[in-house]
């Protein structure tokens, strides 16, 4: 970690009881004791979060002003990135929080995309209040089916079984889409009518951008609520030691199926936004390439933080865009090396440059109100 960032991080950490313990553990026992007494005196049952809200606030601020400073074609690109960030969020819930290795997340993204494209093509339904819930439900239903099959056995399924199962699902869907004439075969479904609200049509540009940003913020906040609840603690247990928590009486398979289904629903929502934004869907959308892409976003940004997934999607897509413009022939190699370097040297992703382990994992205990006479 660069020294300056590390110093800032420690200074911020030291402002709060729970975090101070970790920071001080690195500095020596005397300081540690001091930090602990402070933590106890304030009755901290929850490590305060100092860095994460700052990062989240900065990302939101940047996202809010982006269309004001970007050229039109870049706003269109940024809209696509925000939709992919929403998609990345779905994978972070499933992998980063519940430890389920889904290599088939594009199945839910793409099937929802195809679903809403068919609604628009065959029955002329483009109303936002119909197509977005429909896309979400399609993602949810596919995830429930696949998740039910892969995760809901009497005994826990192995990581390999789940990752190969999801990968196979995604691959099979890709092949199916390519071969099925009704779905447009290799070419997919082109010229999807724009999403509408009454007579208003959402076309590419700032309106679509702010729509998807609004949706991203709402979904992000819901996910944040979920992963910080007691359900989030159960997910942490699931991720760290599934067998152990089964012995406490947790129905671990149910927990996994639930979070997998929620992830599928979010992927479906993002897939339907993507289909209308791009105006067409094609077999890659359900296939292995997009499934892998979302894994990279989350690994690159940092899993298990939500904001890491968003940052990962933005940076991977942004860097690809810039590299492909400037190094037309060799940009995939440069991108590949970059990704490899981050995954090798920062296995917890870019977010780990500013976010400590304790804050990443978080604390779930009851928030105890500070007693006035117990303040330090």
């Amino acid at each position: 970690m660069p020294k300056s960032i590390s110093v800032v991080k420690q200074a911020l950490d030291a402002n709060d009881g729970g975090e101070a313990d970790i920071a001080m553990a690195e500095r020596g026992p005397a300081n540690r004791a001091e930090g602990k007494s402070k933590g106890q005196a304030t009755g901290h049952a929850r490590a305060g979060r100092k860095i994460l809200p700052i990062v989240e606030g900065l990302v939101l601020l940047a996202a809010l002003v982006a269309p004001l400073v970007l050229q039109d074609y870049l706003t269109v690109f940024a809209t696509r990135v925000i939709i992919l960030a929403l998609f990345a969020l779905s994978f972070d819930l499933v992998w980063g929080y519940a430890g389920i290795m889904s290599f088939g997340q594009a199945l839910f993204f793409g099937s929802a995309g195809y679903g809403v494209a068919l609604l628009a093509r065959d029955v002329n339904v483009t109303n936002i209040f119909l197509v977005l819930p429909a896309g979400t439900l399609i993602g949810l239903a596919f995830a429930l089916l696949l998740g039910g099959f892969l995760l809901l056995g009497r005994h826990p399924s192995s990581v390999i079984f789940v990752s190969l199962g999801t990968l196979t699902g995604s691959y099979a869907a890709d092949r199916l889409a390519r071969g099925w004439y009704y779905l447009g075969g290799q070419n997919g479904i082109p010229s999807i009518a724009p999403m509408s609200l009454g007579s208003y049509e959402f076309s590419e540009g700032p309106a679509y951008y702010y729509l998807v940003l609004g949706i991203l913020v709402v979904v992000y906040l819901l996910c944040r609520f979920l992963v910080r609840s007691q359900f989030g603690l159960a997910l942490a247990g699931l991720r760290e030691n599934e067998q152990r928590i089964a012995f406490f009486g947790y129905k671990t398979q149910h927990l996994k199926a639930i979070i997998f289904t929620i992830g599928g629903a979010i992927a479906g929502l993002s897939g339907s936004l993507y289909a209308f934004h791009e105006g067409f869907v094609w077999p890659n959308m359900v296939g292995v390439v997009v499934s892998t892409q979302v894994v990279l976003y989350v690994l690159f940004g940092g899993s298990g933080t939500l904001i890491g997934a968003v940052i990962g999607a933005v940076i991977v897509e942004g860097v690809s865009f810039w590299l492909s413009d400037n190094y037309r022939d060799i940009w995939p190699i440069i991108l590949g090396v970059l990704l490899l370097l981050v995954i090798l040297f920062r296995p917890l992703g870019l977010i780990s440059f500013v976010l400590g382990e304790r804050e990443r994992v978080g604390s779930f205990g009851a928030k105890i109100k500070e007693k006035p006479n117990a303040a330090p």
Partner: protein
Amino acid sequence: MPLLEAAGITKIFGKLTALDGAALTVGENEFHGLIGPNGSGKSTLMKCIAGAEVPTRGKVSFVNSDITAFTPTERARAGMSLKFQITSVLPTLTLYDNILLALQAQSSLFDLVFSRTRGVLHDQVMTMLTQFRLADRAFDPAAALSHGQQQWLEIAMALAGKPRLLLLDEPTGGMSLEERRVTGELLQPIKQHCSLVIVEHDLDFIRDICDRLTVLDQGKVLASGTVSEIQANKSVQEIYLRRA
């Protein structure tokens, strides 16, 4: 009617017969020690009772029902709890969250999502931590504890769900003498509401806290009885106690 009755438990791994018709009976509020030389099948019997292994043959009954085919989750919900031989606290979570995780295991999904039991369980979490002398470390990550303290935390987690039967696999492994003594003290009060099956190499520790002992040798029960009966048993002395 005993609380736990395991009868004719046989477990075969490939060509190895780890258990050969072993049996174990534990009454209400009884502390029962499971002893025997290395490789005698103690841990395997514990796993068959807890559901970590499915016996090849035999039957496990708990609170009058046949639980042989129950999953670990179902056994836990029936009132059985296990502390693993290898410490398996969740190292990145705080001690507080480790206990809360164990306490909330049977909360409904709705309660979990809306954190409805977070406040209610707070006192219970702190009581468990205080009882196991860990309250001052409540908000440290479990990884920061000493090995002995991690064992205590794990016993506290295993007890959090108020089980009727606690299975402890080598709770004092790797502990100092003083830590062993404290562990014995920590376990005594649970006798009022819980039975205990304990696998342990430290025979002094076993003698001090257990009411009854079962001795395994090569997958079979060599003897079972009160501590003094077992101490007087000639064949047990030959295979085991003599070496201790």
